[in-house]
């Protein structure tokens, strides 16, 4: 078989995305070729994308084999679980505390939970921890202040690297160094408008 699984996935992705886009684009007036409305250019580009998607898909049957990385059933299951858990956490968040109704904190909690769940599977662990670290930063920044947010980000991102897990002292040293560096660069030099210490 000369199937190119990567190209098939890419082609399907392009076509699906363009189809959703065309459906959403119905809200926008097309206008005429002479006086183009806001929907005209998106419509053109979505149709080009569908065409490209079909071409990619068509060629994919002949230019392989190029299999996708081995994503096991366990990894796909974890991904589904992560999405479900994340969505549930996002919907539940506003009922837990009024904190989650401000500045996209419900979205942040949902993403954080989702990313931590997919870390169960080895294949997603790196992406999970790195993205979770960024979400933790957002959740903590405005109330917890820059320092607390940075500590959480550094610890979560360090989890992605097995060597860090064995040597917590190295992470501590790195955290102290980065906190000092960020304070000096962003607060002392650039003076960005953000709370440094926790706000009560």
């Amino acid at each position, binding site marked *: 078989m000369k199937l190119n699984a990567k*190209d098939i996935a*890419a082609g399907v992705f392009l076509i699906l995305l363009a189809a959703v886009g065309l459906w959403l684009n119905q809200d*926008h*007036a097309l206008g005429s070729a002479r006086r183009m409305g806001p929907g005209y250019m998106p419509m053109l*580009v979505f149709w080009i994308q569908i065409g490209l998607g079909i071409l990619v898909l068509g060629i994919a049957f002949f230019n392989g084999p190029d299999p996708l990385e081995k994503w096991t059933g366990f990894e796909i299951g974890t991904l589904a679980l992560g999405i479900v858990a994340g969505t549930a956490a996002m919907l539940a968040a506003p009922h837990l505390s009024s904190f989650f109704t401000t*500045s*996209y904190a419900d979205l942040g909690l949902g993403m954080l939970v989702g990313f931590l769940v997919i870390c169960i599977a080895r294949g997603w662990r790196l992406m999970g921890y790195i993205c979770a670290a960024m979400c933790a930063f957002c959740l903590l920044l405005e109330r917890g202040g820059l320092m607390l947010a940075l500590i959480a980000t550094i610890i979560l991102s360090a989890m992605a690297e097995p060597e860090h897990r064995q040597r917590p002292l190295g992470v501590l040293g790195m955290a102290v160094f980065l906190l000092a560096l960020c304070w000096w660069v962003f607060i002392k030099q*650039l003076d960005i408008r953000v709370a440094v210490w926790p706000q009560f």
Partner: protein
Amino acid sequence: MDILGNLAHGFGVALSFQNLLFALIGALIGTAIGVLPGIGPVATISLLLPITFGQPATTAIIMLAGIYYGAQYGGSTTAILLNLPGEISSVVTTLEGYKMARNGRAGAALATSALGSFFAGSVATVLVAASGPLLTSVALSFGPADYFSLMLLGLIISAVLAQGSVLKSVAMVVMGVLLGLVGTDVQTGQQRFTFGIPELSDGISFVALAMGMFGIAEIILNLERPEARSVLKTKVDSLWLTKEEWKRATPSVLRGTVVGSVLGILPGGGASLAAFGSYMMERKMSKGRHMFGQGAIEGVAGPEAANNAAAQTSFIPLLTLGIPANAVMALMVGALIIQGIQPGPRMVESQPDLFWGLICSMWIGNVMLLVINLPMIGMWVKLLQVPYKFLYPSILVFCCIGAYSVNNNVFDVYSTVLFAIFGYFCNKLRMEPAPLLIGFVLGPMMEEHLRRAMLLSRGDPMVFLQRPISATLLAIAAIALLAMMLPNLRKGKEAAMAG
């Protein structure tokens, strides 16, 4: 308009304390990331974009430019000493440069690369200064249809020259254009694809897109690959070249400068393409071609001169036409637009400080880089000993704070996360992110020109073929696209990209 007067004005701007300082900072950062494998100029510039907002536009661009050409100098150091290309543009330098180091001529290879880069950089700077005003006057006669075709040409060539499948690269350009259309429609004020999110009404954040797809996605991909880090075994001896080496390197530097300057101007070109092109040329044309594979100095001198020349001349389409030739230039457009400057042919007249100041600072930056690289080589080698496991949390933290500080809004950080995932999966499907970035920048401009051209032609699409400039540009685009369908040329490109 006398060029000397303009250059004098430019040196006045570039020699102010603040601009000198930031040219130096840019050159230092550029060298550092050039030396470090796993972090390139695109990721660095995107994560430093937010920091530049507080500065005047000229200073910001001077610093960002310094990072780009500084990376060309730094990348060769690791390539020669460790057989490890710090940047893609120095991949070919590893072929001959590392062999030279093993033959005990590491110092000579480093000196050749630095001096060759400096010479090429100086020539390219003059070229930018001379061709800028010239091209600008041509560009002013462009109508909306011509502009549209020019941008289309830029997009297609950038996709054709990108690594991997042309078809998928074109698809990435198209997706970039679509992402660029999100936000308020300029002419009617209607919200497009914003899903009622107020933060999206100004469009998708450029910083979030670039940082996510280049900075964060690269971290995840780098962590997946086990770290390939060799230990420095070669000793750097005398930096002086022998008479024989001077004689062999000089013609290669000259050829490399020409090849690099030309390939740099091409849309989709840039430093790495130039280095490959020059290497191919040296292997066929130089007097020492029989020495290739055993540490031929020509194989270091040519490509190193070429990549630096290209890094500078790729500013020409940006500064004169407002069209980015590669991903780094797309970031520059982003930086200019955030500063409230619309890049285009009027920039030379409306922003003389920026235009001439940048050109002069490029030359000053090259002088600085010569000093930074040659006598201080030992310091940069030490930097290599910082393991990636300590580097990536720092990059991550800088990205978080940087993305937040653009609008003081965590929404941008969440978008960065989403684009990181998008970039990660695109990479897994072998879809190149660089064409997407160029599409994203050019998309809104293309729509504006398309609408204007069609309004002027009363809805007749033939206008794109009737205007001679536009028709020529479209023909070149069609030829480029068809040429890549030919199996022979495609194989040639793959061979060049694989080095």
